[in-house]
């Protein structure tokens, strides 16, 4: 039981760190993108990295975070079965949030990989996903 627990917690943290990096890249992307579109090429523009780098960083972070999240959800189910005897414990809102989160990140990866969206819209979706993470953290504390 213990190793599951440890791996479960570690993978949750790692996925959250990856998603945090993705969101930070998304914020910087949105700032730099808006500076470029509005032709404001001052100090902030000069300091911020290029869009290509930020877009890749966002994509790669999510690519790392997503399998972590998948693993943490699966190990969560097993852990839940060990403790409560059921895979799906309906009083645990965290499980539900995790599944929602998984769907959102799966969707982001899908649109990105199928090259349907890129850049600004992916950055906005990333921020939405991060918003859901924050809500789920608050939700779990209640």
């Amino acid at each position, binding site marked *: 039981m213990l190793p599951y627990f440890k791996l479960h917690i570690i993978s949750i943290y790692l996925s959250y760190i990856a998603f945090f990096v993705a969101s930070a890249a998304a914020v910087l992307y949105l700032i730099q993108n808006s500076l470029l579109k509005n032709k404001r090429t001052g100090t902030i523009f000069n300091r911020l990295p*290029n869009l290509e780098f930020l877009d890749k960083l966002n994509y790669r972070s999510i690519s790392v975070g997503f399998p972590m999240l998948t693993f943490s959800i699966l190990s969560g189910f097993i852990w839940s079965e060990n403790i409560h005897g059921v895979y799906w414990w309906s009083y645990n809102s965290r499980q539900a949030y995790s599944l929602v989160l998984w769907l959102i990140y799966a969707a982001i990866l899908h649109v990105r990989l199928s090259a349907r969206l*890129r850049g600004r819209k992916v950055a906005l979706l990333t921020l939405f996903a991060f918003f859901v993470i924050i809500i789920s953290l608050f939700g779990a504390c209640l």
Partner: protein
Amino acid sequence: MDVVVIGINHKTAPVEIREKFAFLPKHTIEANRMLKENVSLAENLILSTCNRVEIYAVADGNKDYVNNIKTFLGRFHNLNLLDYENRIYIHKDKVAVEHLFGVSAGLNSMVIGEMEILGQVKKAYQDAQESRTTGKVLNRLFEKAFNTAKKIRTETFIGRGAVSVSSAAVRLAEKILGSLKDKTVLIIGTGTVGEQLVLYLKKNGIKSILVTNRTLEKAQDLAGRFTATAVAFEDFRNRLIEVDIIIASTGAPHYIIRNNDIISLMPERKQRPLFIIDLAVPRDVQAEVNKIDNAYLYNIDDLDRIVEENLKLRKSELDDCSKIIAAAADRFMAWLIKEKLKDGI
């Protein structure tokens, strides 16, 4: 032990006069030696670039050295110096030191803060060393000039920001696309600015260049010069999928690229970012294109404005630079006075 600089530059003389005074690179070392012998200077150094010809000298005891240096200049270039009396400036001691520090940092350059001059000053210093016409004063003076130029570059904004249309465009391209090493540019139409920009992109490592023009011969001619690929005008729209940068510079009276062209293009290029530079007047690209996600449109006014802002920023830094230079020159003069006293004893 006086330090003196005698010279002409782009502020005092047009190129027709400057070229008469210029020392060819292959003559500099010899000219340094001749100058030292003829005028019996303690140390001397010739700096000759396209924007300036300057002689830095240290004189010992020789009272009439300024006139002697001028006479040497006149004789070396076969010129009657009386004709150019008002073009030539002479600075001594602290003013001369500040002048060199300013020149090395690019403050005296045509484009304020440009980097090229520092390399030219370094080369002039190496040549003078090779001529064995430098000594402890010029050695220290130039070492301090290089240090001060470096300090100014790191501590002020004098060298920051693009100050030509080409460099502004390349900077934007790198901020949008990242490295240019795997990117392709398409130039539509011909024109000086557009061609300069393509050359600059090439210098910055762009992978491939496509050229198109209404008359295929012109495109082929240009393609030959850039080692690029010529594309027939009727065909260029089919190539937009593979292109990362478009330079539009045709004389067409109407739009060449419209909003709808790019809207339908973006899914085909899998939303890869597209940087469009519209150098044409009247414009070649519909302004609304800039509103499309992952497409970035800059016209000639946008680029000019960036250049102007950066030049303004550089000029606003001049006060800070002068302070750094004055402090460095004071330290050098203090050292020089100590040396004078030492030699006096």
